[in-house]
């Protein structure tokens, strides 16, 4: 069964460093998402992406964050200058369509630790 994959599974970085989290969505999916889960808290929406453009972003998704689909398979989340509070689990998701009839399939997550 097709699945969303994410690399790395765990990333440790120093405050102020740039990190890129990578996701490979399911191949025929067109809509892509990033969510974040700070340890012990709820999962929060960051951004949605379609047709090489951001469709929607939350207030969390400030200028330090960017997303890109550099090729036909990868979808990346870049944090330009990491802060301690960026430590969280980051989930990528993909979907065939943007209506709620289409399930969003989640990847296994990348645990980001900022020291």
């Amino acid at each position, binding site marked *: 069964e097709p699945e969303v994959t994410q690399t790395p599974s765990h990333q440790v970085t120093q405050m102020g460093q740039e990190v890129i989290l990578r996701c490979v969505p399911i191949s025929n999916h067109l*809509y892509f*998402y990033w*969510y974040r889960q700070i340890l012990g*808290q*709820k*999962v*929060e*929406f960051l951004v*949605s992406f379609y047709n090489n453009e951001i*469709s*929607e972003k*939350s207030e969390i998704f400030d200028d330090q964050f960017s997303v890109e689909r550099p090729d036909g398979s990868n979808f990346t989340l870049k944090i330009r200058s990491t802060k301690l509070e960026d430590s969280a*689990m980051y*989930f990528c998701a993909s*979907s065939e369509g*943007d*209506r*709620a*009839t289409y*399930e*969003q399939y*989640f990847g*296994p*997550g990348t*645990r980001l630790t900022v020291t």
Partner: protein
Amino acid sequence: AQTVTQSQPEMSVQEAETVTLSCTYDTSESDYYLFWYKQPPSRQMILVIRQEAYKQQNATENRFSVNFQKAAKSFSLKISDSQLGDAAMYFCAYRSAEIGRDDKIIFGKGTRLHILP
């Protein structure tokens, strides 16, 4: 704005027994979906069950069923014959189905379910 509330941070149930996890939500929309996601220790988010708001019949998936009360904006999850593998964090979630609205998923804070052998 839509909100999802799970008032039970933790619950425990004996193996083979039945447990119900509660969830309430708030929305002014009439067309939406509700979900229960399971997050085991591996942290993978797994869709357990989903309910379309316009369907009156409660969704069922094997041992998992929901009690959807649209007027009360309540969406509880019942797990029958609990198994050790059901131990996880369970998130209730909402997604708009109205055309032109956001397609993000809004999650509750979660309920950690312990299964007692």
